[in-house]
Protein backbone atom coordinates (compact mmCIF):
# COMPACT_ATOMS: atom_id res chain seq x y z
CA UNK A 1 0.00 0.00 0.00
CA UNK A 2 1.30 3.42 -0.88
CA UNK A 3 1.87 5.79 2.03
CA UNK A 4 2.83 9.40 2.32
CA UNK A 5 6.23 9.57 4.03
CA UNK A 6 7.88 12.79 5.16
CA UNK A 7 11.60 12.94 4.55
CA UNK A 8 14.49 15.24 5.37
CA UNK A 9 17.24 13.68 3.30
CA UNK A 10 20.10 16.02 4.19
CA UNK A 11 21.13 16.25 7.84
CA UNK A 12 24.65 16.70 9.20
CA UNK A 13 25.98 15.34 12.49
CA UNK A 14 28.75 16.56 14.78
CA UNK A 15 31.15 14.68 12.48
CA UNK A 16 30.92 17.57 10.03
CA UNK A 17 33.35 20.26 11.18
CA UNK A 18 30.62 22.86 10.71
CA UNK A 19 27.97 20.70 12.44
CA UNK A 20 26.78 21.77 15.87
CA UNK A 21 28.13 19.72 18.77
CA UNK A 22 24.58 18.79 19.77
CA UNK A 23 24.06 17.03 16.43
CA UNK A 24 24.49 13.56 17.88
CA UNK A 25 22.58 10.43 16.82
CA UNK A 26 20.08 10.11 19.67
CA UNK A 27 19.24 13.81 19.67
CA UNK A 28 18.91 13.92 15.88
CA UNK A 29 16.58 10.93 15.82
CA UNK A 30 14.51 12.32 18.71
CA UNK A 31 14.18 15.71 17.04
CA UNK A 32 13.33 14.10 13.71
CA UNK A 33 10.48 12.19 15.34
CA UNK A 34 9.23 15.36 17.00
CA UNK A 35 9.17 16.91 13.56
CA UNK A 36 7.10 13.93 12.36
CA UNK A 37 9.68 12.79 9.86
CA UNK A 38 9.53 9.21 8.58
CA UNK A 39 12.84 9.16 6.73
CA UNK A 40 16.09 11.06 7.33
CA UNK A 41 19.36 11.03 5.44
CA UNK A 42 22.58 11.38 7.44
CA UNK A 43 24.99 13.25 5.17
CA UNK A 44 28.25 14.46 6.65
CA UNK A 45 30.97 16.10 4.61
CA UNK A 46 33.16 13.47 2.95
CA UNK A 47 32.59 10.94 5.72
CA UNK A 48 29.92 8.55 6.95
CA UNK A 49 31.33 7.52 10.30
CA UNK A 50 28.22 8.51 12.29
CA UNK A 51 25.73 6.76 10.02
CA UNK A 52 25.63 3.40 11.78
CA UNK A 53 25.40 5.04 15.21
CA UNK A 54 22.37 6.99 14.01
CA UNK A 55 20.82 3.81 12.66
CA UNK A 56 21.42 2.16 16.02
CA UNK A 57 19.92 5.11 17.84
CA UNK A 58 16.77 4.77 15.76
CA UNK A 59 16.21 1.07 16.40
CA UNK A 60 13.25 1.57 18.73
CA UNK A 61 11.88 4.55 16.85
CA UNK A 62 9.58 4.47 13.90
CA UNK A 63 11.94 6.22 11.52
CA UNK A 64 14.14 5.13 8.64
CA UNK A 65 17.73 6.32 8.48
CA UNK A 66 19.30 6.46 5.04
CA UNK A 67 23.06 6.03 4.87
CA UNK A 68 24.40 9.13 3.20
CA UNK A 69 27.36 11.38 2.63
CA UNK A 70 27.79 14.86 1.19
CA UNK A 71 30.80 14.60 -1.07
CA UNK A 72 32.76 17.63 -2.28
CA UNK A 73 33.82 17.02 -5.87
CA UNK A 74 36.98 18.32 -7.52
CA UNK A 75 34.87 21.19 -8.90
CA UNK A 76 33.93 22.06 -5.28
CA UNK A 77 30.33 21.06 -5.90
CA UNK A 78 28.41 19.36 -3.10
CA UNK A 79 26.65 16.12 -4.03
CA UNK A 80 24.60 14.00 -1.66
CA UNK A 81 24.94 10.24 -1.96
CA UNK A 82 22.12 8.24 -0.38
CA UNK A 83 22.06 4.49 0.25
CA UNK A 84 20.00 1.97 2.19
CA UNK A 85 22.90 0.23 3.88
CA UNK A 86 25.81 1.49 5.93
CA UNK A 87 28.23 -0.83 4.12
CA UNK A 88 27.32 0.81 0.80
CA UNK A 89 28.14 4.30 2.02
CA UNK A 90 31.31 2.97 3.67
CA UNK A 91 32.39 1.63 0.28
CA UNK A 92 32.03 5.14 -1.07
CA UNK A 93 33.78 6.56 1.99
CA UNK A 94 36.81 4.37 1.29
CA UNK A 95 37.18 5.95 -2.14
CA UNK A 96 36.49 9.43 -0.82
CA UNK A 97 39.25 9.04 1.78
CA UNK A 98 41.67 7.93 -0.94
CA UNK A 99 40.88 11.14 -2.84
CA UNK A 100 41.21 13.61 0.02
CA UNK A 101 44.51 15.45 0.38
CA UNK A 102 46.79 14.00 3.08
CA UNK A 103 46.23 16.97 5.37
CA UNK A 104 44.97 16.88 8.94
CA UNK A 105 41.98 18.85 10.14
CA UNK A 106 42.71 21.99 12.12
CA UNK A 107 39.99 21.92 14.79
CA UNK A 108 40.50 25.49 15.88
CA UNK A 109 39.93 26.81 12.36
CA UNK A 110 37.43 24.42 10.81
CA UNK A 111 35.79 22.78 13.84
CA UNK A 112 36.00 19.35 15.47
CA UNK A 113 34.94 16.17 13.65
CA UNK A 114 33.44 14.01 16.34
CA UNK A 115 32.66 10.32 15.97
CA UNK A 116 29.94 9.26 18.41
CA UNK A 117 27.95 6.16 19.32
CA UNK A 118 24.20 5.68 19.55
CA UNK A 119 24.23 6.88 23.18
CA UNK A 120 25.75 10.17 22.04
CA UNK A 121 29.07 9.28 23.68
CA UNK A 122 32.29 10.44 22.01
CA UNK A 123 34.15 7.55 20.42
CA UNK A 124 36.88 9.54 18.72
CA UNK A 125 37.77 12.20 16.23
CA UNK A 126 38.16 12.02 12.50
CA UNK A 127 41.60 13.48 11.80
CA UNK A 128 41.20 13.99 8.06
CA UNK A 129 40.51 17.42 6.61
CA UNK A 130 36.88 16.69 5.69
CA UNK A 131 35.92 20.25 4.76
CA UNK A 132 38.03 20.32 1.62
CA UNK A 133 37.41 18.97 -1.88
CA UNK A 134 38.15 15.45 -3.05
CA UNK A 135 39.89 14.90 -6.39
CA UNK A 136 36.84 12.96 -7.65
CA UNK A 137 35.09 14.73 -10.54
CA UNK A 138 31.32 15.21 -10.63
CA UNK A 139 30.95 12.70 -13.41
CA UNK A 140 33.09 10.08 -11.68
CA UNK A 141 31.24 10.58 -8.42
CA UNK A 142 27.74 10.25 -9.86
CA UNK A 143 28.81 7.10 -11.73
CA UNK A 144 30.31 5.60 -8.58
CA UNK A 145 27.25 6.38 -6.45
CA UNK A 146 25.09 4.60 -9.02
CA UNK A 147 27.55 1.74 -9.23
CA UNK A 148 27.15 1.24 -5.48
CA UNK A 149 23.35 1.33 -5.72
CA UNK A 150 22.75 4.83 -4.42
CA UNK A 151 21.07 8.05 -5.43
CA UNK A 152 23.06 11.15 -6.41
CA UNK A 153 21.43 14.47 -5.56
CA UNK A 154 22.98 17.89 -6.19
CA UNK A 155 22.91 19.78 -2.87
CA UNK A 156 21.34 23.23 -2.34
CA UNK A 157 21.40 24.20 -6.02
CA UNK A 158 20.15 27.68 -5.14
CA UNK A 159 23.28 28.43 -3.11
CA UNK A 160 26.16 30.05 -4.90
CA UNK A 161 28.69 28.50 -2.56
CA UNK A 162 29.24 24.80 -3.35
CA UNK A 163 25.97 24.58 -5.34
CA UNK A 164 26.33 23.09 -8.81
CA UNK A 165 24.95 26.11 -10.69
CA UNK A 166 26.99 28.56 -8.62
CA UNK A 167 30.20 26.62 -9.21
CA UNK A 168 29.76 25.62 -12.85
CA UNK A 169 27.23 28.14 -14.14
CA UNK A 170 24.93 25.38 -15.41
CA UNK A 171 24.10 21.71 -14.97
CA UNK A 172 26.05 19.58 -17.46
CA UNK A 173 23.78 17.65 -19.84
CA UNK A 174 25.64 14.40 -19.43
CA UNK A 175 25.41 14.31 -15.64
CA UNK A 176 22.92 11.66 -14.51
CA UNK A 177 21.74 13.26 -11.29
CA UNK A 178 18.73 11.60 -9.70
CA UNK A 179 17.42 14.85 -8.25
CA UNK A 180 18.28 18.40 -7.32
CA UNK A 181 17.91 19.68 -3.78
CA UNK A 182 16.50 23.12 -3.04
CA UNK A 183 17.45 24.67 0.28
CA UNK A 184 14.92 26.02 2.80
CA UNK A 185 15.98 29.55 1.77
CA UNK A 186 13.89 29.42 -1.39
CA UNK A 187 10.56 27.96 -2.50
CA UNK A 188 10.16 25.57 -5.38
CA UNK A 189 8.47 28.22 -7.53
CA UNK A 190 11.17 30.79 -6.75
CA UNK A 191 13.82 28.22 -7.65
CA UNK A 192 12.11 27.41 -10.95
CA UNK A 193 11.80 31.09 -11.81
CA UNK A 194 15.46 31.77 -11.05
CA UNK A 195 16.89 28.62 -12.64
CA UNK A 196 14.52 27.54 -15.44
CA UNK A 197 16.87 24.72 -16.49
CA UNK A 198 16.14 22.77 -13.32
CA UNK A 199 12.67 21.75 -14.49
CA UNK A 200 14.30 18.86 -16.36
CA UNK A 201 15.15 17.25 -13.02
CA UNK A 202 13.14 15.88 -10.13
CA UNK A 203 13.28 18.41 -7.30
CA UNK A 204 13.36 17.75 -3.59
CA UNK A 205 13.87 20.08 -0.66
CA UNK A 206 15.83 19.31 2.50
CA UNK A 207 17.05 21.16 5.54
CA UNK A 208 20.84 20.68 5.25
CA UNK A 209 20.57 20.96 9.04
CA UNK A 210 23.74 21.71 10.98
CA UNK A 211 21.72 22.51 14.16
CA UNK A 212 18.95 20.51 15.85
CA UNK A 213 16.35 23.23 15.39
CA UNK A 214 16.83 23.14 11.61
CA UNK A 215 15.92 19.46 11.24
CA UNK A 216 12.70 19.09 9.28
CA UNK A 217 12.81 22.53 7.69
CA UNK A 218 11.55 22.18 4.12
CA UNK A 219 10.95 18.41 4.16
CA UNK A 220 9.88 16.47 1.08
CA UNK A 221 6.90 14.14 1.13
CA UNK A 222 7.00 11.00 -0.95
CA UNK A 223 4.25 8.56 -1.88
CA UNK A 224 5.99 5.22 -1.34
CA UNK A 225 5.32 1.63 -0.44
CA UNK A 226 8.38 1.50 1.83
CA UNK A 227 11.13 3.90 2.88
CA UNK A 228 13.85 2.54 0.62
CA UNK A 229 16.23 3.95 -1.97
CA UNK A 230 14.56 1.85 -4.66
CA UNK A 231 11.14 3.27 -3.78
CA UNK A 232 12.45 6.83 -3.64
CA UNK A 233 14.08 6.32 -7.02
CA UNK A 234 10.70 5.24 -8.39
CA UNK A 235 9.07 8.33 -6.89
CA UNK A 236 11.70 10.62 -8.42
CA UNK A 237 10.99 9.13 -11.84
CA UNK A 238 7.23 8.92 -11.28
CA UNK A 239 6.89 5.17 -11.72
CA UNK A 240 4.34 2.64 -10.41
CA UNK A 241 2.29 5.31 -8.68
CA UNK A 242 5.23 6.47 -6.55
CA UNK A 243 5.52 10.22 -6.44
CA UNK A 244 7.22 13.22 -4.98
CA UNK A 245 4.37 15.19 -3.42
CA UNK A 246 4.57 18.93 -3.88
CA UNK A 247 4.78 21.00 -0.73
Amino acid at each position, binding site marked *: MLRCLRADLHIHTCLSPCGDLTMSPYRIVTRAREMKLDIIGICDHNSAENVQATKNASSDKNIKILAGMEV*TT*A*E*EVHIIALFDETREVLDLQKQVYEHL*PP*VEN*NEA*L*FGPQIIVNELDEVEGYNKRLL*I*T*ATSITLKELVAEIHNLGGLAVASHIDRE*TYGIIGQLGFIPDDLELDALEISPRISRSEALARFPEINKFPLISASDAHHLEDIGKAPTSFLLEAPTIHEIEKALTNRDGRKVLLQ
Partner: protein
Amino acid sequence: MKKDTIKISDIVDALNLKIECGEKLLNREIKGGYASDLLSDVMANTKEGDIWVTLQGHPNIVAVAKLKEIAGIILVNNRRPEQETLKKAEAEEVPILTSTLPSFELIGKLYKMGISGMR
Protein backbone atom coordinates in the same frame (compact mmCIF):
# COMPACT_ATOMS: atom_id res chain seq x y z
CA MET B 1 68.65 45.68 -5.92
CA LYS B 2 66.33 45.13 -2.99
CA LYS B 3 62.72 45.83 -3.74
CA ASP B 4 60.79 48.03 -1.35
CA THR B 5 58.40 46.00 0.70
CA ILE B 6 54.73 46.41 -0.16
CA LYS B 7 52.26 46.60 2.66
CA ILE B 8 48.53 46.07 2.63
CA SER B 9 48.05 49.78 3.28
CA ASP B 10 49.96 50.52 0.04
CA ILE B 11 47.52 48.58 -2.13
CA VAL B 12 44.51 49.92 -0.24
CA ASP B 13 45.57 53.47 -1.10
CA ALA B 14 46.77 52.82 -4.64
CA LEU B 15 43.82 50.71 -5.76
CA ASN B 16 41.10 52.37 -3.73
CA LEU B 17 40.18 49.20 -1.89
CA LYS B 18 37.51 49.17 0.79
CA ILE B 19 38.59 47.79 4.15
CA GLU B 20 35.91 45.37 5.30
CA CYS B 21 37.85 44.27 8.36
CA GLY B 22 41.36 44.19 9.77
CA GLU B 23 41.94 47.93 9.91
CA LYS B 24 44.74 47.41 12.42
CA LEU B 25 46.54 44.83 10.28
CA LEU B 26 47.33 46.98 7.28
CA ASN B 27 51.00 47.14 8.17
CA ARG B 28 51.37 43.55 7.10
CA GLU B 29 53.84 42.91 4.33
CA ILE B 30 52.63 41.37 1.06
CA LYS B 31 55.21 38.89 -0.18
CA GLY B 32 53.37 37.63 -3.26
CA GLY B 33 49.96 37.02 -4.71
CA TYR B 34 47.59 34.21 -5.63
CA ALA B 35 44.25 34.22 -7.41
CA SER B 36 41.76 31.36 -7.28
CA ASP B 37 38.16 30.68 -6.34
CA LEU B 38 38.64 27.00 -5.54
CA LEU B 39 39.54 26.69 -1.89
CA SER B 40 41.23 23.33 -2.37
CA ASP B 41 43.51 24.94 -4.93
CA VAL B 42 44.28 27.84 -2.61
CA MET B 43 45.09 25.40 0.17
CA ALA B 44 47.46 23.54 -2.11
CA ASN B 45 49.23 26.46 -3.78
CA THR B 46 49.39 29.65 -1.75
CA LYS B 47 52.46 30.71 0.14
CA GLU B 48 52.76 32.49 3.44
CA GLY B 49 52.39 36.23 3.00
CA ASP B 50 50.39 36.04 -0.25
CA ILE B 51 47.58 38.44 -0.95
CA TRP B 52 44.66 36.28 -2.18
CA VAL B 53 42.28 37.52 -4.85
CA THR B 54 38.93 35.72 -5.01
CA LEU B 55 35.20 36.17 -5.41
CA GLN B 56 34.29 33.79 -2.59
CA GLY B 57 32.88 35.51 0.49
CA HIS B 58 31.86 32.59 2.70
CA PRO B 59 33.41 31.93 6.12
CA ASN B 60 35.69 29.12 4.95
CA ILE B 61 37.93 31.66 3.21
CA VAL B 62 39.03 32.90 6.63
CA ALA B 63 39.98 29.43 7.83
CA VAL B 64 41.96 28.80 4.67
CA ALA B 65 43.69 32.19 4.88
CA LYS B 66 44.62 31.58 8.50
CA LEU B 67 45.81 28.05 7.83
CA LYS B 68 48.04 29.18 4.97
CA GLU B 69 49.19 32.39 6.73
CA ILE B 70 47.88 34.51 3.91
CA ALA B 71 48.50 38.26 4.36
CA GLY B 72 44.99 39.26 3.37
CA ILE B 73 42.04 38.60 1.07
CA ILE B 74 40.65 40.82 -1.68
CA LEU B 75 37.14 40.17 -2.95
CA VAL B 76 36.61 41.43 -6.49
CA ASN B 77 33.74 42.72 -8.58
CA ASN B 78 31.82 44.41 -5.76
CA ARG B 79 31.49 41.13 -3.89
CA ARG B 80 30.87 41.46 -0.18
CA PRO B 81 31.91 39.03 2.56
CA GLU B 82 29.11 37.39 4.54
CA GLN B 83 28.51 38.70 8.06
CA GLU B 84 29.84 35.49 9.59
CA THR B 85 32.96 35.78 7.44
CA LEU B 86 33.64 39.23 8.85
CA LYS B 87 33.14 38.07 12.43
CA LYS B 88 35.52 35.18 11.89
CA ALA B 89 38.04 37.36 10.10
CA GLU B 90 38.10 39.86 12.97
CA ALA B 91 38.67 37.04 15.43
CA GLU B 92 41.36 35.35 13.35
CA GLU B 93 43.02 38.62 12.30
CA VAL B 94 42.62 38.18 8.58
CA PRO B 95 42.21 41.49 6.72
CA ILE B 96 39.47 41.48 4.08
CA LEU B 97 39.40 44.13 1.38
CA THR B 98 36.95 44.62 -1.45
CA SER B 99 37.34 46.06 -4.91
CA THR B 100 34.90 47.20 -7.55
CA LEU B 101 37.24 45.86 -10.24
CA PRO B 102 36.97 42.42 -11.83
CA SER B 103 39.80 39.98 -11.04
CA PHE B 104 41.69 40.53 -14.29
CA GLU B 105 42.00 44.29 -13.85
CA LEU B 106 42.77 44.11 -10.16
CA ILE B 107 45.47 41.48 -10.53
CA GLY B 108 47.03 43.44 -13.40
CA LYS B 109 47.30 46.48 -11.19
CA LEU B 110 48.75 44.47 -8.29
CA TYR B 111 51.31 42.98 -10.64
CA LYS B 112 52.27 46.41 -11.91
CA MET B 113 52.89 47.46 -8.32
CA GLY B 114 55.48 44.72 -8.07
CA ILE B 115 53.45 41.90 -6.50
CA SER B 116 54.16 38.63 -8.24
CA GLY B 117 52.73 35.16 -8.01
CA MET B 118 56.10 33.52 -8.60
CA ARG B 119 58.73 33.69 -5.94
